[in-house]
């Protein structure tokens, strides 16, 4: 008779443990599914496909910054799509030397940054970051200058390698695709 409360307590401990175990059993794959994007192995991003045609160099205005559209191919979930991006290109002279290419993504929080020709500066319209004509940070919240992008001259065309960089940090860290 005295053992009934004990037995009931034992049973309630067992039931609690059973339910806890069951919850764990359900939650483990739930969590694993949700954090899937973290466990995905970074692909070999350095591949050739990351370089995109930014147009004939001759057609790019000289001595000023020009926004050039490029098309990159990305695996976007269940489809491989062609996506548009744009890059800031500076070609010094017709001899196609002195080329500079910058990502338009502000390293502060990711807004697209326009070139203010009158002030000869890049000025972010979101939080007021200001960058010099070489992309270096002048003032405002951004922790670093605009990110330079690799490029190659192939024949008459300029090819640019699109990359995303982690924002909000002083170091330039490539986001692995």
């Amino acid at each position, binding site marked *: 008779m005295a053992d009934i409360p004990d037995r009931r307590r034992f049973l309630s401990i067992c039931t609690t443990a059973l339910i806890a175990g069951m919850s764990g059993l359900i939650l483990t794959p739930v969590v694993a599914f949700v954090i899937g994007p973290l466990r995905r192995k970074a692909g070999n991003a350095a591949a050739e496909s990351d370089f995109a045609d930014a147009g004939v160099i001759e057609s790019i205005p000289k001595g000023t910054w020009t926004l050039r559209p490029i098309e990159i191919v990305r695996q976007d979930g269940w489809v491989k799509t062609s996506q548009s991006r744009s890059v800031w290109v500076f070609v010094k002279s017709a001899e196609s030397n002195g080329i500079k290419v910058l990502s338009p993504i502000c390293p502060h929080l990711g807004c697209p940054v326009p070139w203010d020709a009158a002030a000869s500066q890049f000025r972010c319209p979101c939080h007021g970051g200001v960058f010099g004509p070489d992309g270096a940070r002048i003032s405002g919240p951004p922790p670093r200058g605009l990110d330079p992008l690799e490029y190659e001259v192939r024949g008459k065309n300029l090819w640019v390698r699109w990359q995303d960089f982690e924002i*909000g940090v002083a170091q330039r860290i490539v986001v692995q695709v």
Partner: protein
Amino acid sequence: MGARVTTTNAIAGGGSLKSDVMIQNANQLEKSGPAPAAGFFGSRTGWRELKEHVLLEPVLGGSRWAAAFGSLLLFNFILQVITGILLVTCYAPSVGTAWQSVKYIQTEAPLGWLVRGIHHWGSSTMVVLLLLHMTQVFIWGAYKRPRELTWMTGVLLLAATLGLAFTGYLLPWDERAYWASKVGIGIVSTIPLIGEKLRLLLQGGPDMGNLTLTRFFALHGFVLPGAIIGLVVVHLYLFRLHGVTTAWWRSKEDLLKDRQPFWPNQIFKDAIVALALLLILVGWTYSHPAPLGAMADPSKAYQARPEWYFMFLFRLLRFFHGPYEVLGTFVLPSLFFCILFFWPFLDRGTALDPRRRPKAMTIFGISVLSLVGLTIYAIATDVRMIEPAAAVASAPPRKAPAAPLQKLDVANLYTANCMACHAVDGTGNALRVAFPTIPNFTDPIWQKTRTDKDFILRIQDGKPPLMPAFKDKLSAEQIQALADYTRAFAVKQPAAH
């Protein structure tokens, strides 16, 4: 009573569990046997007792208009749920379909403009009502013992609502949705240590795309509404447990004298206020259709702006430079949220009268003033800089679709060829400063002075120096469709249905 004694005896006497259960059942039967007048459903569901408990409970001090905020919020939330479910029936969350399906809802689905408009503007009223509700609770001292947990679930409801606002903003996948969410996700990524991982989790990958839309959709349509429903149940349970916080200026005798049942006295007032909100929302939606910008294009420059209720935070971020950025993006907002959440334990005085709580009221006043002030200041001083005239080389022209032109294809044509100058709404406002001759398609007088033939010729041959000719770029069918599309700007969207 006798049955209970028997139960005890049964256990003491070592009776089996089986008989124990049987006696328990008999006990229940005896205690709550069906009342003679309960009727078919009454005896099976006990709804009379429920009604008695939930609806007829007397409210101390009688019904009040000021007590309607909570019910009004619940009503607003239910409106959001109903319109949300309707939107889901037409919405397809993927990069290739999200904008198109929202455009379809807005322009073609019967009453789509109304459903989407109420959902869109309803999110703003939800935030406003939440802040008013919290203001009232604060002034009344309604967070004080024993109502601390009611307040805390309320703060969690605020967080979930702001989460809904943030995740819902992305779903139309127009330009402002894309860039505002990119900045929002950027803010998340500045959280120390786990920020970058959180960004990946939210985005579902290294870049914003299909998986970002499906994840935000899951959060917006399932996770956060589910959390809100759960929290509302707890919030309401706690509210009913402790009752309405009585006004500090009324005596106990006065309050007891004035008791009125919740139904119908308070609910009548709640319903009137709810009707007012509904009428305001419908009226506002009729005169201000929910905005839908051009489809998101990561290659186009855009001045990202959040919804107005996040503008104070947006503005705040300008003040924190370089390594101090995290102060504005993470430390201050989470500190503010923590103080708000634990406020009932920080302010433990028992006085309800605001005049006897000078410290709390000062902190409250400063917070409200700075929040409202910063919001007004941020919106008032936000002069979107005019786009510098950087030549954007145009992408190769799209091939003409083989199938008969659908409305959506025309919208895409307009977006690709006309929108840069004439703006998504056809007003041409953005460029009028630079090019004063740009027409306003929404102006009925301008429309009346042009024939259909004029439209087609103008699109075909252009008008130097600014308007380019499209006869080499577009088919005759496409030009005709664009002419019709341009005509339609003069018709106000809601009135079109």
